[in-house]
Structure formats: structure tokens, C-alpha cells
């Protein structure tokens, strides 16, 4: 048990170390433009991705670096993508907010809020005809729950019993605005009932809880039971994007968030179980060293070739 939790800790540290490195590179210059970090939300991808089969499809959002890493996309071509290198997963065409890595079962971030949900339905639909019976996982934030496309997708998946798991990462803010102010019924998982599908609000800061519910939802989906909505409660430790002044935070909010964020919580749990602090520190050091090496390697790679900017528009 503590072995799996140690593995979760390592996986979460890899994501956090990746994101913190991205933050540094954004400040130093090699990464430019709009970047959305998932610091504080690492338990959701870590808990969910381990349950997926290679042929399953995963559709994430612009806050998707952690999902890509958890799905097994190597850090080096991800850093390279963010830095506009030819060796990036999309040769620099996707950037931070819109890359894909289909070879790893990562069918893309999406920088349009909620747009991935209908696309995930199509991936699930395809699996019904190609014999793979793949499950499609559609990840989005609480804000996307107010997008028409997500409503259409949930009804579409429900009507046709498509194997889709809708993972809503509820970090309490729709970009810069509290989701609580943008809905009348704050339990987003309750909307599932309107589609006639199961919906659960779960602790999204506990990888084990996420794993348990995702496994269940996948099983239902694989058996033909149709989609499930999982509302994973979590919190960002950072702004909506790098540069967000976070003026919307209440006094003391971030201190409270830090006490319940997934890595601190898991560390506390492991300490209580008797795992030596030195072992836990070693996990963090290992993750940071891996990410530093990956970033350094990507930094040394050549930029994308301007001569290729018009390629791959049409077959």
C-alpha cells in the first residue's frame, strides 16, 4: 500500500517539478505566451491515468501538462514543445495550451473551454465500430460545466451509452471567477442525474480516491453502461495563468489551500505510516533532478525550422 502511495508521490512530484520548471523558464524567457499550470491539482491525473489502457483516449484542457505526463508522455519533448523546439511533441505547433501526443494515448489539450467533450464522444463512438471498445476520458474544469458543448456531449454520450468518463476538475474558480457565483446549484456532479448517468463528487486531492472512482467508471463504460461524471474537488495553488494577479483570492485562502494540497497531504500520511522523511525528500529530489535534466536537454535542442511553418495543412 505504501509502495503505491510512494509511486503516487513520485508521479505528483514529477508534475509539480515540471510545472515549477515551466514557471522558471517562462520567467527567464525560453517559454513565451500563455501558460496554465496545474500545481495543486496533480492527484487527479495521477489517480486516473494509471487505470487507462493504452488504446483508451484522453482529451485534456490547456491545463494539461500534468495529464500528459501522467499518461506517459516524456518530459523532454514536452518541455521542447513549450519552448518551440523542432523536437517538441508537435514540433512547436501546439505550445503549452494545445499539444497532442496520440502515440501515448494523449489526444490533446484544448484551449477552447469545453470543446474536448464532444470530441471525446467521437473517440468513444469510433471504438464501438473499430472493435477496440476504447473508453474516452474527457477532462475539463468547473467553468466548462457552463459551456453548451459539454451539455451536448453529456447528453450525446448518455443517449448512446458511449464509454466516456467525464472528469470535471473543480478547482473552485472558472478562470478568475468563483464557480459558486456562476451557478445556483453548486454540486456540479448533481447534473449527472439530469442526463440519467452516475455522478459523483469526490476528493480530487487524493489520488487513491480518484483511482477508485475512475476504475469504477471505466468498468461501467467498458461493460456498456455508458458515461459517468466525476466531479473532482481540488484547488489551484497558482493563478489561472502565469501572470494572473489573483486579486480574487480571499485573505488567508492560499495558506488554507496549501494545508490540504495533495502532495503535502500524502507526505503527511506517509510520515504517519512511518516512512522516513529522508525517503520522502529523496522522492522530491529525484523528480526535480529528472525534470531539470529534461528541461536542460530540451533547451539545447534547435528551434523549429521556419521553413516548415506551412507544412501539414492538408493531406
Amino acid at each position, binding site marked *: 500500500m505504501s509502495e503505491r502511495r510512494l509511486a503516487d508521490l513520485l508521479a505528483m512530484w514529477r508534475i509539480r517539478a515540471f510545472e515549477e520548471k515551466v514557471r522558471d523558464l517562462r520567467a527567464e524567457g525560453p517559454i513565451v505566451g500563455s501558460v496554465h499550470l496545474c500545481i495543486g491539482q496533480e492527484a487527479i491525473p495521477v489517480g486516473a491515468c494509471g487505470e487507462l489502457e493504452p488504446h483508451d483516449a484522453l482529451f485534456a484542457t490547456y491545463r494539461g501538462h500534468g495529464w500528459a505526463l501522467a499518461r506517459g508522455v516524456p518530459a523532454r519533448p514536452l518541455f521542447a514543445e513549450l519552448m518551440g523546439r523542432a523536437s517538441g511533441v508537435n514540433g512547436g*505547433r501546439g505550445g503549452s495550451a*494545445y499539444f497532442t501526443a*496520440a502515440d501515448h494515448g494523449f489526444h490533446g489539450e484544448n484551449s477552447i473551454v469545453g*470543446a474536448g467533450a464532444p470530441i471525446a464522444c467521437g*473517440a468513444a463512438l469510433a471504438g464501438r465500430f473499430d472493435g477496440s471498445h476504447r473508453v474516452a476520458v474527457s477532462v475539463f474544469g468547473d467553468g466548462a460545466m457552463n459551456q453548451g458543448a459539454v451539455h*451536448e*456531449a453529456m447528453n450525446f454520450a448518455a443517449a448512446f451509452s458511449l464509454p466516456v468518463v467525464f472528469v470535471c476538475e473543480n478547482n473552485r474558480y472558472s478562470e478568475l471567477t468563483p464557480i459558486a457565483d456562476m451557478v445556483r446549484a453548486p454540486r456540479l456532479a448533481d447534473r449527472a442525474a439530469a442526463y440519467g448517468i452516475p455522478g459523483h463528487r469526490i476528493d480530487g486531492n487524493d489520488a487513491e480516491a480518484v483511482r477508485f472512482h475512475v476504475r469504477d467508471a471505466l468498468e461501467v463504460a467498458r461493460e456498456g453502461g455508458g458515461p459517468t461524471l466525476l466531479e473532482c474537488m481540488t484547488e489551484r495553488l497558482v493563478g489561472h495563468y502565469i501572470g494572473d494577479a489573483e486579486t480574487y483570492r480571499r485573505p488567508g485562502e492560499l495558506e488554507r489551500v496549501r494545508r490540504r494540497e495533495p502532495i503535502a497531504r500524502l507526505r503527511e500520511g506517509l510520515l504517519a505510516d512511518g516512512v522516513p522523511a529522508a525517503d520522502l525528500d529523496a522522492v522530491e529530489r529525484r523528480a526535480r533532478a529528472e525534470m531539470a535534466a529534461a528541461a536542460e536537454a530540451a533547451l539545447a535542442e534547435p528551434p523549429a525550422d521556419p521553413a516548415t511553418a506551412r*507544412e501539414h495543412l492538408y*493531406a
Partner: protein
Amino acid sequence: MRDLTYGEAVNAALHRLMEELPETLVYGEDVGVPGGVFGVTRGLRKQYGERAFDTPISESAILGSAVGAAMMGRRPIVEIMWADFSLVALDQIVNQAANVRYVSGGRLTAPLTIRTQQGNAPGACAQHSQCLEALFLHVPGLRVCMPSTPQDAYDLLVTAVHCDDPVLVVENRTLYFGRKEPVRTDGPVQPMGGARTRRAGSDVTVVTWGAMTHQVLEAAEALAREGVDAEVLETPWLNPFDTETVIESAGRTGRLAVVHEANVTGGFGAEVVARVAGAGVPLAAPPIRIGTPDVRMPAAPVLAQALVPDAARVIEEVKRLTKAGAP
């Protein structure tokens, strides 16, 4: 050869595609069991079962799922009942489908076909009358075509579905139930692109597409009786667009008119004129665009007819063009 109406030709193409490409799916609002509001998808559900199905009235879900299914190796052929309805889900066409190949560097593709129909017909309201091809033609990554004959309705759809890129096939409901014409339904179809010289002529080049082709041909015959010999080039493929053929013809006749049902400002006619001008083709008179004026579309037929170009207006404007700049 089979004698088919335009609508029957689309139906024949769909049957062929379902037969020869097992990865095709046909879906959209009312296309399965009812066979489509214009009967164009009739018989597919019966013959191909689950591969042809009805959907909720959810254009984002229809188009988005087509993108996802296409990314995973299917060839969905989805119907958007009226082109006007595509506007509620433009994100899935412009932000999603058109980006898949480019952003992934070709590792993912989105070979979906969107069938829709557009244009004015008597009594259609302002939200069921628009000609929107220019919107889609502005978007790199999409292919766009507009058939006007039963043979092209058949060929363009077959070509579109075999194409590995997202393609919009914009049909016209006033043509679905027109007269039957012989259609080649076996063997290879005409390749993507190209222009059709519907009438050879030497005095003026008239470029057109979609249902307007029929008005232009009627006008050309009337003009011939008055001594004006118009060359009518129909360009059923707008992306890719056969610029070379248009330039060659305009260079030969020295006069150019572009006719489309869409309203003039920002219409594709402007692009055609710009390409000919940009190529330095010497013209005897400034080129003209004939289209619907920049207004909304009224429902009353008497009002709509005052706006949508017809043969009489084409005759009048082309006659004026042939007199302009004459020595």
C-alpha cells in the same frame, strides 16, 4: 449510368461510400430512421444499421464527435441540416477540425465530411437562407465544394469522403428534386478541384458556383441571342480553387464577372477578382461581382426575389460589362 435527381445522386453516393468504405458513418438530425428531411439519406439505416443513425439536435456534439471519430480512424459523414445551423457549432469546424492535422504535424488527421445545404428558397426565413461558403473558405485546413448538377453531387461527395481532410459539401435544397440526369455511379469519380466550362465563349468570362450556375447558364443563352458570347466557368470546388483556369479564360475574353448567391461584401467573388487582378491579367473593363446585396434575407418571396441574383440581373449586368471599356 443511372437517371438520378440531384438528391438521388447524393443518396447514391452515400450508399456507395457505405459499401466501399467500412469506416464511414452517416449521422445527424433525422438522417437515420426518417431518412433526412429531404430524403437524401433514405435507405441507409435499413441497409447499414448502426452505421447510420439519428442524433439529438446538438450541432456541437454532432460535429465534435465527428472530429473525435475521425481522429480515431473513422470517416464520419455528418449532416448539418441547414448551413445556418453550423453557426452554433462553428468552434468544432474552425477551432477543432481545421487544426487537427496542422497542429499535430500530421500525426492526427480529421477526415470528416460535413454535408449541409444552403441558400434562399421561397418563404425561407432569414435564419434558413444564408450562403455561408465564404466563412468556411476563410479557414485554412478545410476543403469546400458546392455541387450544382447530379453528377457533381455524386462525384464531389465521393471525393470528399475519400479525402483525408475535413471537407464541407454545401448542397442546395432547391436542386434536390430537380430533373433526373444520367449519372455515372460506378468507377472513378472526377478528382478534387478543377473548373467546369459549362459554356464556351469569347466575349466575357462568368465564374460561378452552386445553384447560381443554373441562373448564369440561362442568362448566357439569352445573352448569346443578343450577340454576347459568354464563357461560363463553374467552380464546384472552391478550396482548392482552380485559379489558373479562371485566369486563362479571363485573359482570353478580357472581361470578368463573378456571380454568387452569397452577399457581396467579403464574398468569395472578391477573392476571385483579387486573384485575377493580382495575376496582372489585362482586362478591357473593371471586373464585376454579382451577388445578393448586403442585407438580411426577408421571408416573403417577393422581397427575397428583389435581392437574390437571377438570370435577368445577370443578363443586364453582363451586358453592361461587355459594353464598358469598349473602344
